[in-house]
């Protein structure tokens, strides 16, 4: 298994999958989302991630906490089944993994990949869903607002089919993200117990422990 040295390249693919924002299809609706999102200064939420794959008999469930402070501070922390933390603050991003009972920095270049990923996630939190030409964005109103991002580049076929982001109509916060990789594989992240605009200690975005 001589795959480890190549993590950085794999990370770039992850970046392509998750980061590239969307084409402006429904300009008015997206403009409204941006306007509504301006009211959000902080978000803290639990999240549950479910990974569906053919090789799994039941979804692999991961849990953690998510923190956001405008404009671009993020803490993305997994507690189960594998502890890891990504912190992005003031343009610096670091990724940590649990080893021997303590958190140590991921030295594979994954942090730089996550910097790009979290940059886009921060964009979503700020209501910016439609500023990248690599994805076609479609917005559909319902009980919640559903934004579907579809890759324009055919070479993405087999890697990601679409990304669905569900937005709360009440407060314009992201309720869930669904990444469909293929007909038999997808990842769904649901944000729970979201608290909006409550002060978050700055150390959350600086200290890993």
């Amino acid at each position: 298994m001589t795959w480890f040295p190549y993590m950085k390249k794999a990370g770039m693919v992850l970046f392509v999958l998750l980061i590239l924002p969307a084409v402006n299809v429904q300009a008015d609706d997206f403009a409204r989302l941006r306007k509504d999102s301006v009211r959000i200064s902080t978000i803290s939420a639990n999240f549950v991630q479910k990974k569906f794959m053919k090789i799994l008999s039941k979804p692999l469930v991961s849990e953690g906490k998510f923190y956001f402070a405008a404009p671009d501070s993020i803490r993305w922390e997994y507690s189960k089944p594998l502890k890891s933390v990504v912190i992005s603050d003031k343009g610096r991003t670091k990724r940590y993994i649990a080893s021997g009972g303590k958190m140590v920095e991921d030295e594979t270049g994954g942090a730089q990949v996550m910097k790009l990923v979290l940059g886009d996630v921060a964009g979503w939190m700020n209501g910016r869903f439609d500023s990248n030409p690599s994805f076609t964005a479609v917005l559909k109103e319902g009980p919640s607002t559903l934004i579907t991002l579809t890759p324009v580049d055919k070479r993405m076929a087999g890697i990601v089919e679409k990304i669905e982001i569900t937005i709360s109509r009440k407060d314009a916060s992201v309720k869930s993200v669904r990444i469909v990789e293929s007909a038999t594989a997808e990842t769904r992240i649901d944000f729970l117990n979201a608290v909006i605009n409550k002060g978050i200690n700055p150390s959350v975005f600086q200290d890993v422990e």
Partner: protein
Amino acid sequence: MKGLFFLLGMFLLVSCAAMPAIHEPSSERAGKSITCPSPFLLEKTRLIHAIEVRMAGKPKTALIGVTLADPVSRMFSCAMMSTEGMVLFEASSGPDGVKVLRALPPFDTNVFASNMMDDIELIFLTPVGVLTRKGVFAEGERVCRRHKEQGGWVDVLAGRDGRIQVRRYSEFGVLQRTVNLEGNAQNAYAVIELQAIDFVNYTLIMTLIESEVVRDIPPVKR
């Protein structure tokens, strides 16, 4: 022709000399037959492990690995994903060889797929090949050595404390992989340490998240 066989025989002799020598059991064990250690899967099983990747003794990154292995058919599937759920590699192996279902760069090389499947087979499935020797190492570990049909050697040894180790050597006796099974009697795969001696040396510490025996449901006849 005789000369060729002689040279081949000498070559194999020299090759094996690079591997630790296997001795006859000591007098206290004399008379007792050596039972080959066999921690390997007996039933089709799905295992999910947290994988810590170490280089030069330092942790570098962490991944999640899923393995579905059937020891009877010797078919298995595997997937490797990031904590964030991104599937980096997915493949299956069976009578028709290795079938890669998904491999994102830089995991999209034949060498990577082949090495990964070889490692999974080494860890989870009873080694195939001719049992060439069984006995004990100098330190007293019980060991069985097999020569693989496609080349290379595999030692499965059990220490005095019962811990199992699997070693894979090249055809020339060069150590390539060491697998330490640190699990318990209930599950030998609770903690797996794989040490790879390759272009880049690395160690994988695999900690079991969950495992389940998989029973295939036969199709219902109508």
